[in-house]
Every structure is written in C-alpha cells, then in structure tokens.
C-alpha cells in the first residue's frame, strides 16, 4: 500500500506541475493572440479554441490534484458533532461518494470518446478525442487518488505530510 501511495503522490505532483504549465501556456497563447492582432495586424485563428481545450485538461487534472490536497470546497454540517470514530466513518462515506462520481466520469467519458472522438475541432481541425481524453485521464486519476485515501482511512492512516499543498 505504501508503494501505491508513493506512486500516487508522484503522479499527483507531476499532474500538479502539468496544470501549472498549462496555465502558463494559456497566458502565453492569450498574450501572443493580442500581440499578433495589434502589432503584427494578423490574428491567430486557433488561439481561442486552444485556450478553451487546454482549460478542459487543466480542470479535470486539477480536480484530481485538488482532491489529493483536500482543497475542494465543502460545507460539512455534521463533522463538528461527531467523535473521532464518527469522523472517520464520515470521511470514508465522503471518499466513497467521490469514488462513485469519479467512476461515473471515467467510465462515461470512455464511452463519450468512443462515440464522439472522431469529431474535429471547428478551427484547428484537431480530432476531439484529444480533448475528451482529459475527462478519461482526470477521472482515472481521481479514482486512484480516492482509492488510496479510502485504503488509508481503512488502515487508520489519515492525512499525511505528503498531502500538504506547495506553499
């Protein structure tokens, strides 16, 4: 289990750097589009499309990394009324729910890719399977992250130092 946790952590860190790089790429493409329009008097036709599709990758990969670092918004109305045992059960139930959602996203997006993957992007002509694949990859990463969290909770191991986000 320790090896799977370490492997998951490494994958999450790589994905976290990847989404940071994607965000930087969005800024660069956006800046290049404005520069081309006003300085070179020639617009980049694919810039808007590229930004939108990179943002889809950023969202689905980032949803999984934010889940690992426990950074998603929640409202937790019952946690403070529970003892430590109840709290552990609550965390387990939450993770099982997230796992259910992750499995739905991963499985349904495989079907979605299969059915619609041959569509092409309107401007760049790129096969849409490269965009829809973000949901498959992000969904699978979320399945992995949640599975490890459930296994940790069952083993009595809660949030460890590797779950601290970079500061």
């Amino acid at each position: 289990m320790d090896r799977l946790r370490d492997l998951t952590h490494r994958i999450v860190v790589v994905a976290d750097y990847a989404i940071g790089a994607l965000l930087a790429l969005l800024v660069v493409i956006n800046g290049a589009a404005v520069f081309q329009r006003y300085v070179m008097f020639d617009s980049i036709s694919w810039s808007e499309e590229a930004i939108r599709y990179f943002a889809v990758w950023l969202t689905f990969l980032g949803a999984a990394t934010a889940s690992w670092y426990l950074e998603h918004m929640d409202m937790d109305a019952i946690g403070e009324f529970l003892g430590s045992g109840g709290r552990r059960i609550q965390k387990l139930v939450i993770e099982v729910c997230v796992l259910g959602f992750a499995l739905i996203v991963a499985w349904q997006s495989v079907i979605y890719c299969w059915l619609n993957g041959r569509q092409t992007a309107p401007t760049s002509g790129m096969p849409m399977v490269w965009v829809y694949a973000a949901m498959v990859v992000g969904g699978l990463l979320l399945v992995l992250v949640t599975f490890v969290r459930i296994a940790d909770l069952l083993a009595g191991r809660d949030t460890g130092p590797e779950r601290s986000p970079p500061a």
Partner: protein
Amino acid sequence: MIVLAVVLVVLLAIGVPIGFAFGLSGAAALWWTGMAQLNVVAKMFAGLDSFVLLAAPFYILAGELMTRGGISERLIHLSRIIVGRLRGGTAYAAVVSAILFSGISGTAIADMAALGQIFINGMPREGYSRAFAAALVTAGSVIGPIIPPSVIMVLYAAVADVSVLKLFVGGIVPGLVLGMSIAAVIFLKALRGELPRSEITVSRAEAPGVIRDGLLVLSLPAFIIFGTLSGVFTPTEAGGIAVLYALFLSVVVFRQMTARDLVISLRNAARLTAALFILIAAVEVVNYVLIMEGIAEWTGQLASLFKAQPTLFLLVCVVAFLIIGLALDAGPALLLLAPFLLPISRQMGIDDIHFSMVMIVSCTLGLISPPVGVCLFVACKIGNITQRQLWKELWPFFTAECVVVLLLVFFPVLSTGLVSLLFK
C-alpha cells in the same frame, strides 16, 4: 427534481465536496428519470466550453502573483498615508486596503489571505482587540468579489449569459458603498472612543515612493476597465494581460518574485481554477436535469406570482440568498440559482445588472455569515480566535452590509447608473 434535491442536500450535509455533490446528485437524478448517464460528461464538457469563463484563471493568477510579489504591503502603506492619522486610522486603512486590493484580486479569499496576516496580527499591537481586527478584515473581504476584477462575476456571467464587462462596471459603486458602510461602523466606534489612535509607520521621506508604487499597482484595474470598455480587448484577454503586468511589476519593478514563487503561484492558481471549474461543470448537469424536469414552468408560475411587485420579488430573493448563504458558499449558490432566477427577473422588467448586483452582493455575504462562511474560517485561523468571538465583533459590520443590500434593492441606480453612463 425531488430526488435531485434530497440527494444534493444529503451529500452536502455529509461534507462531500460541493462540485462532486452536484455531479453525483445530477447523476442520481438522471438515473431516477431514466436518462442516459452519458449526459453527465456531455453536460460537464459543455459547461466548460466557454471563452468568457477563461478570464477566471487569469484573475486568480494575477491576484496570486500580486500577493507574492509584495503588492499588498505597498497598498497598505498607501492606505495609511490616506487615512492613517484619524482615530481608528488603522481600521480605516484596513477598509481602504480592502477596496484597493479588491481592484487587483478577484476573490474574497485572496483579500483575506493578503490583508488578514498583516492587519489581524498587526492591529492588536496598537491596542485593537484581535477579534475586532479579524471582524474588520472579514467584513472588508466581501468587497473583493464586488469591485472588478471579480472571479465570481466571471463565473456568474458564464452561467447566466450576462455581459461580464457590464457586471464589472456595475460592481464599482456597490463595492464602494460596502466600503463606506464598514467605515461608518468604524466611525461610530471611534466616536465612542472605543478605538485607539494609530501609529503612523510611513515617514514623509517614504511617501513619494509609496504613492508611486501604489499608483503603479492601481493602474491595473483602470487598465482592465478602460481596455475592455474601449473594445481593445475582451475581458478574458484583459485577464491574461493583467497576469503579464502583475509579473512585470513583481519581477522587474518590485524585484520580489523568485522563480520558485512563480511556479508555486502557477500551481496554486491552477488548482483553485480546477476546483471552481469542476463546480461549474457539475452545476451544468444539475441545471440540465432541472430543465428536463420542467423548471421553466415552475419559474414561470413564480414570475406570475410576483408580477406587479418586482421590489417584493427582490426582497424575497435577498432573504432567500441570505438563508442559503448560511449553508452554501457564494460561488455554488450563484451558479445554481442564477440561470433560473434571472429569467424571472427579466419577465418582471428588472434590469439584468440591478438583479445581478443584488444577487451577487447578497450571496457574497454568505462568505462571512456563520456557520459555514469560508472567510470566517480563514479569519479564525489567522487570528487564532473562535467563531463566537469573531461574530461578536462582526455582526455590526454584517448588519451594515445587509443595509447596503437593501439600498441596492431600493435604488437600482447604484448598480446601473455607471453602466448606463458608460455604455450609452
């Protein structure tokens, strides 16, 4: 619709992350009504496929860079020059800082994080109570999402199909009025001698440099507003340019940003973006189920109920938003409600910007209302105080901000005046 509501409430109450709770309750309702589960991913993708939405990560990143690049200290120094000498001067400086900072950040959390450390930990040294300092910064954080640029307005514009630029302009006056309402509470407390006179930390020799740095920072919101108003670039493009400008100030002018800071800013901003966007994507699934289950008919009936009384409708909405705000954060509440309430307000002839401002300000108050206001948690954490101690000092500010919401309801010109002036 009942299955959707029950599953959603149960998941939220258990503590399932809000985005996942939306997605899972949408999936449950699709299964219950016999619709294909494929709609989950199809609608999530459709929800994200919007260019307007992409302004949000840029403003989040710009705020993150500005915070790490030494911008907040400069704005606080500038505020102290403006109002520091009055009784309760540092308290006024906190409000002015919140207003100035909201011009460069897009979220209440960014304001809390940037200003909280400095004021909540610094004001007690001048004789203010720690709870008062925390309450003040918490109340001020509400201004962040109202004065442009605003991440919440970008998200709202994307789901409600309203011009983000008009929302930005419409937020300026309500944001300033919110600041004035907080200042009014400080004034009353200072009048009763409850607040100390401040120790001014900016010398005369330092002042020109502080003013120059402050103006350099504050040129950013002006640049965004005028650049987009003149049609030079879209709000999304302006966001991207704001990032480059923030980077230029932090690295070249103020020389306070390292490569490591930049990488961490990118990673943090990307994760926050993902957490918000997954919420937008999942809300689209919920909205799809509601539409298929005939929400339009229900909203039509609601509109006919309030037909002759738009003000009453607005007041009912405000009360509903404040109650919802007790349990749900501003972002999810707005995303969930906007697509259905905006058409009703249109049927009643209420101006889009007027309704949107009332809605956004009321929902944003949810960020500071107990028991789950996210800014309350941050303030308690920074100030090392309990929520009860915080609320004891916060309630006069909260009440003053509720009065501002009422002013927005009864005086539409506060929201629409500047928009009408600039867009005619």
